[in-house]
């Protein structure tokens, strides 16, 4: 049944292109535009070292004389021109954004993956095993849901920071961020997976698998998991937008990515300092990039939810 014959595999791309999902995708301008925006941003983040005119973290390439150059106009001292201007230390804003987006996206994706793996595992376990395992996991989920996830993430960040020795704090900050955002976001995945597992568990094919002696682990992975993938995909997309915003928020608040590894949020935090002195570009461009990223991922998630499950609309 699982599509092992060669012709079936050959036509997989074609099946995808002819599927209802792709059809509704083509007919939704919002989905197409946001996909394009996401793709452009992700690609330019991935290939930042190739695209960026300068490496903002290479002290050799920096010239303090270039500081505060407005966008698209030559610097008074060096005569260099920068597409989006420079910040106080003469770093090219465009380059810092590309590198910053790398960090934002990395943290966002890694945190969602972490939350997803954790949530799916705990959801499967509590749905399939039931009993005290379920009680404990779902109780923890309930308690955590009482609090906004950004607050949970802040607390985890604070505690982790407290445990980390001072000299490693900046280095570890990115990983601590991923941990904090991921841990604050697993509940949704766990709830959906548990719900679906409870439904699937009693279906006849699972019963049959159990009767022919399959182990619980195998049943969960091969039979139940595939059935919960589409809601998980929807939640993952929406979570990604939330994780990107959460990362930016934490970094903006100064409890996230450090200035040595600035994400979009850190850049906005730095830029805010120059709002009153008139160097608007240091703030504006990172803010627009963050907005474009968060909005298009969000719209994509919304669209995906409607397309995969019309009942949720």
């Amino acid at each position: 049944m699982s599509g092992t014959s060669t012709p079936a595999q050959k036509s997989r791309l074609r099946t995808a292109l002819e599927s209802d999902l792709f059809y509704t995708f083509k007919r939704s301008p919002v989905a197409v535009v946001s996909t394009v925006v996401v793709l452009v941003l992700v690609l330019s983040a991935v290939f930042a070292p190739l695209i960026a005119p300068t490496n903002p973290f290479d002290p050799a390439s920096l010239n303090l004389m270039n500081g505060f150059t407005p966008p698209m106009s030559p610097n008074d001292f060096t005569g260099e021109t920068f597409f989006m201007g420079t910040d106080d230390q003469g770093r090219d804003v465009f380059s810092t954004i590309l590198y910053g987006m790398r960090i934002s996206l990395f943290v966002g994706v890694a945190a969602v993956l972490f939350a997803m793996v954790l949530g799916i595992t705990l959801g499967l376990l509590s749905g399939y095993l039931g009993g005290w395992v379920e009680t404990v996991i779902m109780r923890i989920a309930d308690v955590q849901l009482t609090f906004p996830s950004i607050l949970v993430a802040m607390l985890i960040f604070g505690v982790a920071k407290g445990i980390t020795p001072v000299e490693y704090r900046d280095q570890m900050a990115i990983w601590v961020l991923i941990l904090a955002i991921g841990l604050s976001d697993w509940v949704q995945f766990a709830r959906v997976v548990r719900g679906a597992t409870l439904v699937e568990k009693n279906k006849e094919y699972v019963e049959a698998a159990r009767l022919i002696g399959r182990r619980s682990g195998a049943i969960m992975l091969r039979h139940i998991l595939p059935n919960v993938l589409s809601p998980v995909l929807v939640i993952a997309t929406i979570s990604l937008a939330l994780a990107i915003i959460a990362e930016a928020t934490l970094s903006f608040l100064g409890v996230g990515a450090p200035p040595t590894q600035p994400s979009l949020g850190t850049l906005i935090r730095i830029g805010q300092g120059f709002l009153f002195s008139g160097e608007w570009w240091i703030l504006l461009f990172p803010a627009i990039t963050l907005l474009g990223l968060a909005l298009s991922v969000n719209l994509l998630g919304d669209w995906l939810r409607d397309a995969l499950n019309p009942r949720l609309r």
Partner: protein
Amino acid sequence: MLAYIIRRVAQSALVLLIVGLVAFAMFRFVGDPIDNMLGQERTAEDIERLRGQLGLDQPFVVQYYRFLENAVQGNFGVSYRQGRPVIDILMERAPATLELAAVSGILAIIFGIALGVFTAIKRNGITANLIMSGSLIGVSLPTFLIGILLIYLFSVELGWLPSFGRGEVVDLGGWSTGFLTASGLKALILPSITLGLYQMTLIMRLVRSEMLEVLRQDYIRFARARGLRDRTVHFRHALKNTMVPVITVIGLQVGAIIAFAIITETVFQWPGVGLLFINAIQFVDIPVMAAYLMLISVMFVGINLIVDILYFFIDPRLRVDRKGGH
């Protein structure tokens, strides 16, 4: 009904105990309290004496119990950073946050419900569709960007409103209020819009979808078939039924406002507990973090409890069913 409330109270107490455990674990294991309280120059005797004083030589459960006992009495220890009792710092900062949260919450609830009802009733109107599209951007827009945008417009460009602080405050017996001075009220405008906007959008979208659901129900058709006025159908019949599920979320959102105040307070340098908390995280000031966690949990759990009890007044089905049949 009484049994139900008792059960809910017990559940709330359990949540608080768990949160207390987390706070205690932070307090006890993150950063050595001895390290933090004694300076570099210390003797083994000092350490032993302090361990005894703090009860660190006692069994875990005893320590936890004493921690809770202290917490209930408002004793959260001394801030590592400011060297003052945490409770004093919290109390002095609480009015700023509570006033901000109250104004934002009221704005969010009033405008959220009003706009939600409007967009549901005029589902196909141009204005309603514009509001809905705008709200999607509102949900995606990080709070701190909204704050910065407002500061840029109204403080930097127009110069109408202050960009930071509370303005002049009046001390009313330990409660410093910004409500009584013109500059205090002006200072409230931008932060409360920033803080309330996201919650307003959420409430609006929820009210709209619930209301659309309710408007499809048979009893609404029947109300129309009886020739009731649109106003009666929408506000007496539909809105009341809409509020049943919405109230839970509004309760959660009010709690969330207090937490999200952290972000707004940072943007506007608003001297509340949120800003205190962020600074505590930056400087790993564990007692302040633990105390903030406990305090905000009590508030959240309290709000949830109130919401559950509110249901009884809105939905008659609960009142009777819990009493056991009719």
